[in-house]
C-alpha cells in the first residue's frame, strides 16, 4: 500500500518535471482578478512564437509570494523564470545571486522614460536587476464635499478629522496592522517630521530621535480618537472599503484607489480629492515609494526568451492596458496621470539593504507594540534602533 503510494508519487514527480520542461517559462504573480495578465501573456505567446510563457497566480499577500520565490531559489530550482518583483526584494535577491544583471539590456529611450527613482529602486550597487513596471506612492485622499482645502500640517489633519468625525464616519484611516504597510505609513509621518530611519549610504540607524518619537505619538493619538480602534489591524483594502462606503473623511492609501474612485459605480465619484501626506511645520511632505517590476531568475534555462517577455510586458502599450484595467500607475513618465506626477517624482525609497525584511520586521513589531499601547513611544524607537543597529553591524 505504502509502496504503491510512493511509486505513484515518484512517477507523478517525473511527469511533473517533464510537463514543466514542455511548459516553457513561468512567472509567479498576484491573483489576476481582472484577467489582464492572462490576456497579456496570451498575446505575447501568440505574437512571439517560441517556448510559451505560463502565468502562475500566487497568493495576494506579497510577503507570501516573496517566500515562495525564496523557497524555490534556495533549492536552486528553475520553476520560476521571470520574477514579478517588489522593490524591497531587489537588494536581498541580488545579494543572494538569484537575479540576472539587466544593465546592458536597458535601452536609452527606456532609461529616459522610466522614473529615475524606479530605476534606482530596481538596482543594487549600480547594476539593474529589475525592469520597472508600476510605481506606487502613499497619498492622502480626502472628501472634497467635506473638506475645502486639504490639510498641510499634521495638526491640521488631526483637527479636521476630529471636527468632521460623526457617529458613523471616522476621521482618518491608515494601515496599522503589523505588516509592511505599517512601515510605509510610518515612514511618511517620520519623514514629514524631518526624521530618518536608516542612512542608506553609511547603514547607520537614525531612528532613536525626537522626530521618531513624535511620529509614533502622532499615529498613537489617532487610534480610537479620529481613527477606529481597530485601525491597528487594517490593511489597504479594509481602509479602502470603509472610505468608499462614505464612512471616513481622510484615507492614506496608494494610487490604485484613485482609479477605483473614478469608476461610475463608485458612490463617492467626484467627491474625492487627492493630496500629498501632511507634514510638520517647516518640513515637506513625503511619500513612500513602492513599485513592481520584472526580473529574470539566475536559474532560468532560457534567459533570452525571459528577456523577450520582460521587454514586451514593460512596453508602454502593455503597461497602459494594465493601467486601464487594474488602476495601477505605470513607472513611465509618459503614462503617469498629471495629478499624480508631483507625488510620484518626489517619492522616497525605503532603504535598499539586503537585510531589509529583518529591519522592517523589527520596526513593525515595536511600532505595533507602541500603537496598541503595550510600550511607550520612546521605548519603541529606542529598542527598534538598538536591534536594527545590532543587525546592520553584524
Amino acid at each position: 500500500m505504502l509502496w504503491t503510494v510512493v511509486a505513484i508519487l515518484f512517477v507523478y514527480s517525473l511527469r511533473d518535471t517533464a510537463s514543466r520542461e514542455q511548459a516553457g517559462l513561468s512567472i509567479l504573480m498576484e491573483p489576476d482578478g481582472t484577467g489582464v495578465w492572462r490576456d497579456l501573456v496570451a498575446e505575447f505567446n501568440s505574437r512571439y512564437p517560441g517556448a510559451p510563457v505560463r502565468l502562475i497566480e500566487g497568493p495576494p499577500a506579497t510577503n507570501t509570494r516573496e517566500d515562495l520565490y525564496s523557497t524555490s531559489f534556495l533549492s536552486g530550482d528553475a520553476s520560476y523564470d521571470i520574477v514579478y518583483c517588489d522593490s524591497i526584494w531587489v537588494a536581498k535577491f541580488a545579494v543572494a545571486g538569484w537575479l540576472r544583471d539587466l544593465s546592458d539590456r536597458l535601452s536609452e529611450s527606456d532609461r529616459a522614460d522610466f522614473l529615475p527613482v524606479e530605476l534606482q529602486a530596481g538596482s543594487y550597487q549600480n547594476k539593474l536587476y529589475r525592469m520597472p513596471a508600476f510605481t506606487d506612492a502613499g497619498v492622502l485622499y480626502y472628501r472634497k464635499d467635506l473638506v475645502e482645502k486639504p490639510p498641510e500640517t499634521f495638526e491640521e489633519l488631526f483637527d479636521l478629522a476630529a471636527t468632521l468625525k460623526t457617529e458613523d464616519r471616522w476621521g482618518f484611516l491608515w494601515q496599522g496592522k503589523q505588516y509592511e504597510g505599517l512601515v510605509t505609513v510610518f515612514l511618511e509621518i517620520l519623514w514629514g517630521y524631518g526624521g530618518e530611519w536608516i542612512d542608506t549610504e553609511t547603514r547607520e540607524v537614525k531612528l532613536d530621535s525626537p522626530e521618531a518619537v513624535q511620529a509614533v505619538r502622532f499615529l498613537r493619538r489617532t487610534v480610537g480618537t479620529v481613527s477606529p480602534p481597530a485601525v491597528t489591524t487594517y490593511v489597504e483594502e479594509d481602509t479602502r472599503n470603509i472610505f468608499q462606503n462614505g464612512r471616513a473623511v481622510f484615507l492614506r492609501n496608494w494610487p490604485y484607489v484613485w482609479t477605483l474612485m473614478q469608476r461610475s459605480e463608485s458612490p463617492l465619484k467626484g467627491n474625492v480629492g487627492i493630496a500629498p501626506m501632511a507634514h510638520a511645520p517647516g518640513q515637506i511632505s513625503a511619500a513612500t515609494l513602492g513599485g513592481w517590476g520584472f526580473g529574470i531568475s539566475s536559474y532560468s534555462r532560457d534567459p533570452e526568451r525571459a528577456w523577450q517577455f520582460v521587454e514586451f510586458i514593460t512596453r508602454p502599450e502593455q503597461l497602459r492596458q494594465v493601467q486601464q484595467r487594474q488602476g495601477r500607475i505605470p513607472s513611465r513618465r509618459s503614462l503617469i496621470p498629471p495629478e499624480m506626477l508631483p507625488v510620484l517624482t518626489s517619492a522616497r525609497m525605503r532603504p535598499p539593504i539586503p537585510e531589509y525584511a529583518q529591519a522592517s520586521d523589527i520596526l513593525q513589531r515595536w511600532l505595533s507594540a507602541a500603537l496598541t499601547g503595550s510600550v511607550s513611544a520612546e521605548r519603541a524607537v529606542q529598542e527598534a534602533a538598538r536591534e536594527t543597529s545590532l543587525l546592520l553591524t553584524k
Partner: protein
Amino acid sequence: MLSREPIRKPQALNLEALFYWPAAMLLGLVVAYPILRTTVLSFTQMSLHTAFQPEFTGAQNYLRLAFDSRFHNSLTITAAFTIISVALEFALGLCLALTVGTFIRGRGIIRSFLLAPWTLPTAIIAVLWAWIFNDQYGVLNVLLLKMSVIHTPIAWLAEPGSAMASIIIADVWKTTPFVFLVLLAGIQSVPRDLYEAIEMDGGGAWAKFRYVTWPFLLPFVFISLTFRIIQSFAIFDLVYVMTGGGPGGATETVSVYSYQTYMRYLDIGYGSAQVVAVVIILAVTAYVLYQLLLKRYARLF
C-alpha cells in the same frame, strides 16, 4: 535435515525483521535525515552573508538564542498557548467522549457531526475565524451588540489579550474533536462487566469513572495529550493567517519566528538552532508525559 527447518525460530524472526525494513527506511528518509541535517546546520552560519555556504561557528547560534528576547518571548507565548488550549481541548473532549460514549443510538451521526471541524483545512478555518472576529463585519460583534452585551464593536484581533484568546478559541474549536475521538476509542474499549461489578458493590458514577474508566483511559490520555502538545507547540497556520504574529508580536509563536528566520531573513543556521531547541523541549515534555501516564498505567496492571 529438511524436517528441522520450520522449527528454527531465528530465520522466521529474520523474515519478520525484513518486513520492517521498508518502513524503517522511509522513516529514516523523511524523519531522521532532516533532523540530522538541521542539527548539523544549527552549528553553522549559513545566510546571505556566507552566500548560503555553511561555515562552522560552533555553539554561536545557541549563544545567540540565549540572548534573543524575541525568541524567549515567542517561547513564553507558545507555552501559554499550548497549556491553555490543550487543557481546554482535553476537558471538553473528555466530557464529550463520556457523554457520547453512553449513547447507543445515533452515536455514529453525533460522532461524524462532532468530527467536522477537525477534517477542514486549518488555513481555511483560520480565515473563517478571522471573519467571525472582524470588528466591522464580524458575526461575533453583531451578536454581542444585538444582545446588548457590548455597546461598541470590539476589535478582537487588535489587542494582545483578545487576539490570543481568539486564536485559542479557534484552535479549541478545531482540535477538540481529535481529543474526543481518541478518548471515545478508549472508553469503548472498557469491558462492560467491570461497570456491572462496581454497580454490584454499590458504587456510583464517580466510582465507575475513577476506578474503571480513567485507568483504562490512561494510554489514550497519553496519546491525545502528546499529539496535541506537540501540534500546539508547533502552531503556525492559525496564527499566520489570523494575526500574522501581531499585534506587537503578542501572538508570535516559535514556529512563526522560525519561519521568518528561515524564509524571510534567509538565516538558515540560526533558524535551524531555533528548531533544534524546540525539538529538545518537546522531547523532554513527551518523556515526562510518558513517565507520568504510561508508566503509571503499566504499574496498574
